[in-house]
C-alpha cells in the first residue's frame, strides 16, 4: 500500500500545498483584518471554485495523453519547477536571498490596504486581493496535483492530500491568527524542491524508456541524493559568501 511512489507523492503534495496555503493565508488574514471578512471570504471562495474548475477541467483531459509523452512532459516540468524551488531555498539558506517573512508581508499588505478607502457594502479591493492571493498561490498547487496525480495514476489521492493540507493550514491559521511566521517555511520549501526534482527525474526517465534499477525504490535513492547535494550546495554557498548573515541557524 505504502509504495515509495505513494510516500513521495503524498509528501510532495502535502508540503507544497501547506507552504502555498501559508502564503495565501497571510494575504487573506491581512485583507480580513483590515477591510472586513465578508468580501475577503467571498474572494477566497471564488478562487477555490476557479482552482477546482481547473483541476476538474484539465485532470480528465490529461489522462488521454499517451503515458510516455505525459511522463516526459510532466517530468521535464517538475524538474524545472523543482530546481527553481531548490535554488530559491538554497539561496535563502545561505543568506544570499532574504527569507520569506510572513510577518513583514502581513504588515506591508495591511499598510497597502489601509491606504485604499473602504467601500460601503461589497468591498471590491478586498475581494480582488483575496482572490488573487489564493488563486495565484493555489495555481502552483494545482499544477503539482495535476502533474503528479495523473502521472502516478493517483489523482484522487493527490486531491485528498491537497484538501487535507488546506483544511489543516486553515484551521491552524484561524487558531494562531498572525503567527504564521513560525512555520519553518524555507525548510519545507527545500523538502518540496527535493521531492519535485526526485519525481521529475523519475518521470523524465520513464518517459524516455529508462529502466530504473529497483523501479520505485529509485525514488528513495533520488530523495537521499538530492537532499545530500542540497546540503553540500548550501555549505559551498556559505563558504563562498562568508560575509553575508546566514539566514538559517
Amino acid at each position, binding site marked *: 500500500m505504502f509504495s515509495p511512489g505513494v510516500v513521495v507523492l503524498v509528501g510532495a503534495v502535502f508540503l507544497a500545498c501547506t507552504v502555498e496555503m501559508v502564503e495565501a493565508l497571510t494575504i487573506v488574514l491581512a485583507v480580513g483584518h483590515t477591510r472586513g471578512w465578508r468580501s475577503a471570504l467571498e474572494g477566497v471562495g471564488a478562487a477555490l471554485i476557479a482552482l477546482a474548475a481547473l483541476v476538474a477541467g484539465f485532470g480528465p483531459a490529461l489522462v488521454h495523453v499517451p503515458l510516455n509523452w505525459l511522463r*516526459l512532459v510532466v517530468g*521535464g*516540468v517538475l*524538474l*524545472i*519547477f523543482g*530546481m*527553481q524551488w*531548490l*535554488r530559491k531555498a*538554497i*539561496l535563502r539558506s545561505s543568506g*544570499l536571498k532574504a527569507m520569506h517573512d510572513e510577518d513583514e508581508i502581513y504588515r506591508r499588505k495591511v499598510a497597502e490596504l489601509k491606504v485604499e478607502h473602504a467601500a460601503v457594502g461589497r468591498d471590491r479591493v478586498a475581494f480582488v486581493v483575496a482572490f488573487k492571493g489564493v488563486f495565484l498561490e493555489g495555481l502552483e498547487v494545482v*499544477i503539482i496535483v495535476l502533474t503528479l496525480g495523473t502521472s502516478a495514476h493517483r489523482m484522487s489521492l493527490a486531491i485528498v492530500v491537497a484538501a487535507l493540507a488546506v483544511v489543516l493550514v486553515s484551521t491552524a491559521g484561524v487558531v494562531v491568527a498572525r503567527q504564521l511566521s513560525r512555520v519553518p517555511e524555507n525548510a519545507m520549501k527545500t523538502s518540496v524542491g527535493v521531492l519535485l*526534482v526526485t519525481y*521529475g*527525474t523519475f518521470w*523524465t*526517465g520513464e518517459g*524516455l*524508456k*529508462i*529502466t*530504473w*534499477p529497483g523501479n520505485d525504490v529509485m525514488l528513495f535513492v*533520488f530523495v537521499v*541524493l*538530492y537532499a545530500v*547535494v542540497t546540503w553540500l*550546495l548550501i555549505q559551498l*554557498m556559505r563558504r*563562498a*559568501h562568508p560575509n*553575508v548573515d546566514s539566514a538559517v541557524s
Partner: protein
Amino acid sequence: MATRSSLPVRLLKGFAMFWWDFLVGDTPELFAAVVFTIGVVALLSLDGHFNAASVIALPTLAVFALAISLWRASRAAGK
C-alpha cells in the same frame, strides 16, 4: 491610440505569458539545462541502448544544472 486585442487573443497571450514566467522566468539556464538533459538522455536511452549510462546521466546533469544556476546567482551577488 493603440487598439485593444479581442478577449480570446488576450486570454491566449495571458496563458502563454503564464507558462513562460512559470518555466523560464528569471532562470532561463534551468530551462535550457533541462531541455539539454532530455536531449542527451533521449539519445542514450532510446531503443534500449546505454540504459546504465542514462540512469547515471539524468540525475548527474540535473545536479550540474542546479550547481550552474547557483554559481550564476552567487556571481551576481558578489558583484
